């Protein structure tokens, strides 16, 4: 019987059974092509991304924003370009940036991201001063308590920065007492930490919070934007590419310097792969319906 069925398998049914090896290879080729051909996207900013952009753009120079690098290496391709873009935007507007993390793996990644942008600005001929324009505070244990702690006494929560300097003495952090002195917190998160920022910083201290999240979580945070609990959200590599394209353009115009693009290159591969996936789903379904129709006959 099984043998008989096999013999009469039509083409439509067969295409539902492409071996895994070819599916994998197809994906690899599709992803590699735009990278090798160096195709860059010129994306248009999505609305949730624009909300964050507009908020930062409306802050007066000299404001302080805080970035929380709450992600590990597995979310880095999506979240790091966002963080880099936001830092570029902030520095160009004269906004000062503090970095911290609630995830131990995020400690080294936050350091890497912050030093990289500092280096970019140095190469662009607009050097930033550590301790005045930016500070890296590093890691603390316990999400909720750290977030609550900053609202109570910033210096007690972060007595020292990453390098062991006294935060009561550094120019940037000297005058920061609590959330009243922080214009915006942006949590780059691979997990549920934006929820803790909302619950412990927004609800209790009216702190403005934005989130940069992996696309896995993007849909989950949507309700918080409508309620104003988040001022906006960067969702996945598309948002990273949107923001990156904008800040690269700004830096080129102002300094004649082009930072290395990352998400604007990667997003082309993502789009190609998305189309590949949809085609595969369609093929799988055609084959499924062909098989079902025959079974019914």
């Amino acid at each position, binding site marked *: 019987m099984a043998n008989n069925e096999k013999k009469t398998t039509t083409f439509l049914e067969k295409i539902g059974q492409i071996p895994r090896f070819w599916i*994998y290879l197809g*994906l*690899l080729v599709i*992803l*590699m092509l735009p*990278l*090798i051909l160096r195709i860059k996207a010129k994306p248009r900013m999505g*609305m949730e991304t*624009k*909300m964050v952009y507009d908020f930062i753009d409306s802050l007066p120079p000299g404001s302080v924003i805080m970035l929380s690098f709450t992600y590990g290496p*597995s*979310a880095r*391709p*999506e979240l790091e370009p966002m963080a880099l873009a936001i830092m570029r935007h902030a520095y160009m507007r004269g906004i000062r940036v503090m970095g911290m993390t609630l995830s*131990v*793996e995020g*400690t*080294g990644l936050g350091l890497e991201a912050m030093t990289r942008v500092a280096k970019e600005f140095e190469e662009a001929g607009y050097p930033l001063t550590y301790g005045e324009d930016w500070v890296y505070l*590093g*890691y*603390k*244990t*316990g999400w*909720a*308590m750290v977030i*609550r702690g900053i609202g109570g006494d910033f210096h007690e*929560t*972060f*007595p*020292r920065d*990453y390098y*062991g300097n006294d935060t009561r003495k550094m120019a940037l952090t000297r005058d920061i007492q609590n959330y009243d002195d922080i214009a915006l917190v942006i949590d780059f998160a691979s997990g549920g930490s934006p*929820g803790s920022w*909302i*619950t*412990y910083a927004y*609800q*209790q201290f009216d702190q403005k919070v934005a989130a940069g999240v*992996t*696309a*896995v979580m*993007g*849909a*989950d945070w949507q*309700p918080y*934007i*409508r*309620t*104003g*609990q988040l001022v906006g959200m960067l969702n*996945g*590599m*598309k948002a990273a590419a949107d923001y990156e394209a904008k800040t690269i353009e700004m830096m080129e115009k102002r300094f004649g310097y082009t930072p290395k693009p990352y998400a604007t*290159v*990667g997003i082309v*591969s*993502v789009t190609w*792969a*998305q189309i590949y*996936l949809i085609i595969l789903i369609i093929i799988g379904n055609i084959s499924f319906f062909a098989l079902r129709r025959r079974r019914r006959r």
Partner: protein
Amino acid sequence: MPAILTWLISWKTLAAILTLAIMSFLYKENPFYRFAEYLFVGLSAGYGFAMTYHLAMKPNLLRPFIIPLLQRIHILGGEPLPINWWYIIPTFFALCYLSVIVPKYSNIIRLPFAFLLGLGSGMAIPRSFQAAILEQLWDTILHPKGYHGYVDMSEKYGWSLTLVVVSAIIIFVSVLAVLAYFFFSKPHKGAYGKFARFGIIILMIGFGASFGSTVMARFSLLIGRLMFLLSWISGFPH
């Protein structure tokens, strides 16, 4: 040193080899993959310990209390630090964690657990209620206390007034339907059953949206690795 050797003996090559070792898992489980896996667990734990020591333990507990205490009883030297005697309480609870080293006394670890869990739970109740329930309900029923998300929507997304009103009604009914679906104390029969079934439909649309978004994340991660491998290969001297 010849260019090729500098390329070969570099951090980037090491990272590339490890990337390929993990990717070899796609073929099947093998010794390279296992080596990389154990190496990762060990390094991560060591990394976590050193970072926690430098950035949390030392500034937030050792410096306010333990180091100045040891200075006062002349075990440690150096410039005397100010002491905060209240920190004797967290120091006691923190030191309880060390009891794990001696399995016989490891029950003492329940004390710091109790402190953190009790405080955390107590603090979570009113705030979670506010963040996850009240604010969400206010917006669902368009209560004047809520943030006027629906006004914002029409401006930012360019929605017409009709669309805003229809959407607000859909949200209201759908939230109720999803809650009805998860409410198992009443059997899903009759009109209530039909309403709960509408809840399933909304759930499916939501899961579809989550999946649609998730796909982007999965591809992004692989692209990250491919970009790295390409940049490593392009560094090959020619």
